[in-house]
């Protein structure tokens, strides 16, 4: 199991389109993936789960992956957060 702390840095936070990108990025990985913040943990492969986390810009979030390809799945998530979900500006 891998865990990583990250702070949400895209301007709009984890809204539906950003959540969709996260779910799409995790598509195809066998490992399970979770996001946690403010004591709540959700399945990162579920768009509803990610959206309902209500994580806006500046929110600290814990990423967790568990499974055979957990390192790659983690990297895919971290990349997306670092690219700020490819949001403009």
């Amino acid at each position, binding site marked *: 199991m891998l865990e990583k702390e990250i702070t949400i840095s895209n301007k*709009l*936070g*984890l*809204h*539906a*389109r950003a*959540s*969709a990108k996260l*779910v*799409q990025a995790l598509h195809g990985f066998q490992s399970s993936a979770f996001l946690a913040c403010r004591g709540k943990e959700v*399945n990162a492969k*579920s*768009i*509803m*789960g990610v*959206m*309902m986390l*209500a*994580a*806006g*810009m500046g929110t600290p979030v814990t990423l967790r992956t568990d499974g055979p390809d957990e390192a790659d799945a983690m990297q895919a998530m971290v990349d997306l957060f670092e690219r700020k979900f490819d949001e403009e*500006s």
Partner: protein
Amino acid sequence: MALGRARLERPSRYLVDDRPLAEDEIEAEVAKLDAAIAAAREELSALRDKLHGTLAREVAEFIDAHSLMLADRELTSGISNLIRAGRYRASAALKMQRDRLVEMFDAMDDPYLRSRKEDVEHVIARVQAGLVRESSREERKIASRVGEILVADTIAPSELVPLAEHGVLGVVLGSGSQVSHGAILARSLHLPMIVAAHDALSSIQDDDLLLIDGEQGSIVVHPTAADLARYRAWQRDTIQQGKRLALLRDAETRTRDGVAIALYANAELPSDIAQARSYGAAGIGLYRTEFLFLQRPELPDEEEQFLVYRDLVLGMGGLPVTIRTLDLGADKADESGLAMDDEENPALGMRGVRLSLHRPQVLVTQLRAILRASAYGPVRILVPMITTADEMTRVREMLDDAARDLRTEGYEIADNFELGAMIEVPAAALVLRDMIRDLDFVAIGTNDLVQYTLAVDRNNDHLAYLYDPLHPAVVRLIAYIIVTARRAKRRVTLCGEIAGDRRYTALLLALGLTDFSMHPGALLEIRETVNSQDFAELRAQASDLLRVNSRERLAEWLGGFAPATTGTPADAN
């Protein structure tokens, strides 16, 4: 403007059947829900297909998010559980799930995230609509759309296209803004839209007659006779203007004596491409790529550029597209991911092809992306700021290498792609005869050519009087470029501001120019002007024009060809 019957749409307008299900109805009800969800997903996927092209990228992101929500068991199993365990009918279960989620959104701290409960509402409304359709009421619902102005609190951008197709005349929204995705899409669909009409839903009733003016942002409920007269006058003008424009849209561009002239569009934004198509451009004569590099800290990679160029090529449907390689200098570098030293004099500094050759990886990435897009339609590559023949040779080598590498890597690229130079440095114009063999085509960039020939900064207000395309030196240079290119049988396109300014059209035709590239908004106006000229008659005056030694005499000559038409057919949208 639009005049029509009001049709109020609230999320709660779907009928909710509260009667509990009998034991033996449960599985049929779950199946009904599943069918409605499947239908909603299919609708979204059909919409996404229909929306391909550059215009649609932002809308596509919403559609993807909504599709994923419909596929998410956390949403759907919650609803089917309500049916199974609570014996709710599908419509009631959907409403409960929606209310539950909306309540959670309302409790969110972040104002943007809170406002995105819209996504949940749109998705659930789409499934509700699917359930209604199951009971075969769809035909009636669509038919009744004709002649209506939709009044709603909010609307998903993806819903606008089918609404317009079903005959909705206009949209009034209680929320939203002029720059929202929906408002931008509405404009491109020519659908009048009023946003942020906060009390619209409370003060307008179903079937009220509404007159809305999307440009003014005004709504008249129960218009008076005077309002209707104003509407009729507008309608007459629009029809008249539309007729004239429609004639010009489909018209050929041909001088009175039958010489075909090609009018290309300069483009950058998706809306430019849409306009170029609808105004009958011969292709894109200048596609600027700087926007891909600006306002961001990193450089765009090959894949990102490829997708943009590919959509551009697809968007033009087989018409030629001329993509100009990066034309940035030190004055703009700090807005991009290009680390550059400050320069005393950026206009004479490291810019255009000079920068591309100094940072070959940037150019190679761009050339690869353009070449990959060439698999989807005709592409020409235009290199800016060429000063010496040697620069062109080096770009050609890099292009050939990139093409060879791509083919080795298994990419599909066109067999032929033309490489041309933007002639905007006077030195390049003067030695064009030596360079022309290495060029497949020539583009004249008059904005910079004027600035460099006259040594006038085009942004210096005090020197504006000197910045003059009619200076005989500029006219003679343009004439020389055109003659040299024509003698070598190379296409020559002029793509500065003067190409789209009808005051210069006669002069450029006289100099022998047959390919113009301009802002798409100017296409119809220039077409109208070209069609009123006689090419042979103008050509006969070329040698006299080149002997004219003052801009005043040139201006006087041009005055004799002043366009006779009144009004401007420029972009009304």
